[in-house]
């Protein structure tokens, strides 16, 4: 087995036992990047090889001296390029932030460093995290490592592809409506969207402030859990972080889920869900049942309205969050225009991509005078109903299981002319963001065409330990931890 194929747990054990060094791990990641980046386009920027090796060397030296090391010491981590990193640039895959280098680090990035992780580079995404395919990037589309003719999902497509392909052991993504879980599902890895308020958003470039959370990605449950533990907790710079204690997220596999109540919404396997996806999810539920879990059906009354509510509220927030990009005090400024207003309008019109402009327009519409009550306000009221549905569901269940997406990864450009169809593919992921609860996606098998199928496990707010427990037991019992795929060489058109 090659080093880049190791999961987090295997890599950490190898480092601890001295089987290989952090330098070896970084070398292997860099080698893999060299080998597959041409096909995948997962990274926007990779750090200088020498810098990475020096940093890894320091970790190795500290380990040799017997110093106490952080929980992620020497582990190569990829960071989505909408999370601020001083000196590494942060573009959000947008022309409007071309060349922007933040003068500060995101709290999550500081904590990553404190935990000893080695940031290998910044990953590609849908521009400003708006998209479900990673095709909307000023730096070109990202390809799915399992089939480069298909999308990796989005918006954290770069992070998902990088972890799936072994270019990094762990990655940070961001999840506003499924942007960690859906690409994790499409790429066959574990992706976690923590409860709202669990991880500081300070330094995360805002898309939709009441939905955004930084999430974690790994090829194993423990990797995602350990990374989440490292970045979680209250932050005095983010007034929306919770002061609820951060408990242990990792634990021992017991082979036992007895007493754990698992809810399966009817629509999980209903209309619009690919039969192979439905089958894989039901099989996963059977595994949980065999471990002793109590499984029952469940109805979430208002889930049919989730996508509509989400797109209105999230984009309303986005229209305001993206008002700051005007080319005046940072970022790119359009040339050749005369007059302040013209420069601003031209900068924004030229430098934002079509999807971002569409969402700004929708969000501005939802807030505009005469539309506010019918769109923004109504959507916010529906959001309350959806949160209430979950509150009652979690009185009866510990976790709720659904597919992550109705289908496996779709083809590039499959939804290019139909933005609404793309939005509807988020039907299983947006409810967790609306309600601010915890959810993860993990692989539960491969389709007949060899594509990963994602299983979503949702738990109540700050009930991450229960979510991880179910995931860990399922992972161990099912044995469906996916290998690192062969990445076919393709010529990208980006």
């Amino acid at each position: 087995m090659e080093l880049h194929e190791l999961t987090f747990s295997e890599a950490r054990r190898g480092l601890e036992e001295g089987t290989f060094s952090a330098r070896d791990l970084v070398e292997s990641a860099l080698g893999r990047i060299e080998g597959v980046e041409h096909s995948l386009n997962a990274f926007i920027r990779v750090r200088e090889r020498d810098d990475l090796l020096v940093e890894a060397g320091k970790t190795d030296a500290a380990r040799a001296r017997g110093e106490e090391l952080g929980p992620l010491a020497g582990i190569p981590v990829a960071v989505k390029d909408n999370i601020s990193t001083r000196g590494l640039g942060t573009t959000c895959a947008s022309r409007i932030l071309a060349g922007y280098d933040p003068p500060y680090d995101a709290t999550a990035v500081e904590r990553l460093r404190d935990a000893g992780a080695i940031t290998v580079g910044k990953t590609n995404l849908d521009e400003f995290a708006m998209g479900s395919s990673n095709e909307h990037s000023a730096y070109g589309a990202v390809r799915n490592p399992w089939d480069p003719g298909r999308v990796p999902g989005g918006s954290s497509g770069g992070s998902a592809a990088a972890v799936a392909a072994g270019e990094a052991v762990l990655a940070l993504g961001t999840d506003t409506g499924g942007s960690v879980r859906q690409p994790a599902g499409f790429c066959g890895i574990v992706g976690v969207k923590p409860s709202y308020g669990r991880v500081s958003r300070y330094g995360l470039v805002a898309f939709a402030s009441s939905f955004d959370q930084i999430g974690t990605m790994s090829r194993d449950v423990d990797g995602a859990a350990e990374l989440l533990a490292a970045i979680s907790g209250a932050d005095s710079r983010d007034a929306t972080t919770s002061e609820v204690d951060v408990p242990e997220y990792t634990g021992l596999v017991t082979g036992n889920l007895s007493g754990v109540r698992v809810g399966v919404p009817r629509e999980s396997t209903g209309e619009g869900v690919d039969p192979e996806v439905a089958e894989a999810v039901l099989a996963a539920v059977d595994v949980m049942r065999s471990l002793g879990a109590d499984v029952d059906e469940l109805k979430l009354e208002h889930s049919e309205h989730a996508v509509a509510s989400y797109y209105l509220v999230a984009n309303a927030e986005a229209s305001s969050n993206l008002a700051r990009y005007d080319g005046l005090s940072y970022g790119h400024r359009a040339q050749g225009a005369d007059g302040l207003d013209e420069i601003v309008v031209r900068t924004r019109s030229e430098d934002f991509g079509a999807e971002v402009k569409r969402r700004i327009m929708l969000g501005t519409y939802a807030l505009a005078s005469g539309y506010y009550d019918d769109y923004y306000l109504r959507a916010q009221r529906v959001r309350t109903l959806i949160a209430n549905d979950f509150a009652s569901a979690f009185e009866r269940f510990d976790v709720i299981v659904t597919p992550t997406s109705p289908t496996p990864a779709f083809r590039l450009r499959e939804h290019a002319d139909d933005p609404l169809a793309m939005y509807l593919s988020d039907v299983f992921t947006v409810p967790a963001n609306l309600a601010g609860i915890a959810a993860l996606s993990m692989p539960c098998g491969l389709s007949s065409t060899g594509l990963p199928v994602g299983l979503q496990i949702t738990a109540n707010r700050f009930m991450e330990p229960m979510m991880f427990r179910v995931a860990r037991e399922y992972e161990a019992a099912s044995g469906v931890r996916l290998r690192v795929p062969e990445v076919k060489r393709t010529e990208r058109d980006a």
Partner: protein
Amino acid sequence: MAATTDDIRHIAALAKLSFSDDELERLTNEMDAILNYVAQLSGAKLDGVDPAFALLRRDNVFREDRVGEMLKPDDALSNAPDRDEDFFRVPGFLPEG
């Protein structure tokens, strides 16, 4: 409610965006489809349901009134597309009035 190109043009002005006529037409159609889709929300029973404004937020989160770290002017201006000494320079500015 059907979106018209005039509505969309007005929204674009608020959002500081401009579109060509072709773009505007396509955008109007796309927005119309999306607005039609979200119109389903009017079917939800919302009597006595409050908006979720404060659903996930904590009340009364404060900082104490103590000076913390500030940026050096060079860091503050390091990303400026244009500057004049320690000022951000913006083009085509005419003071109001």
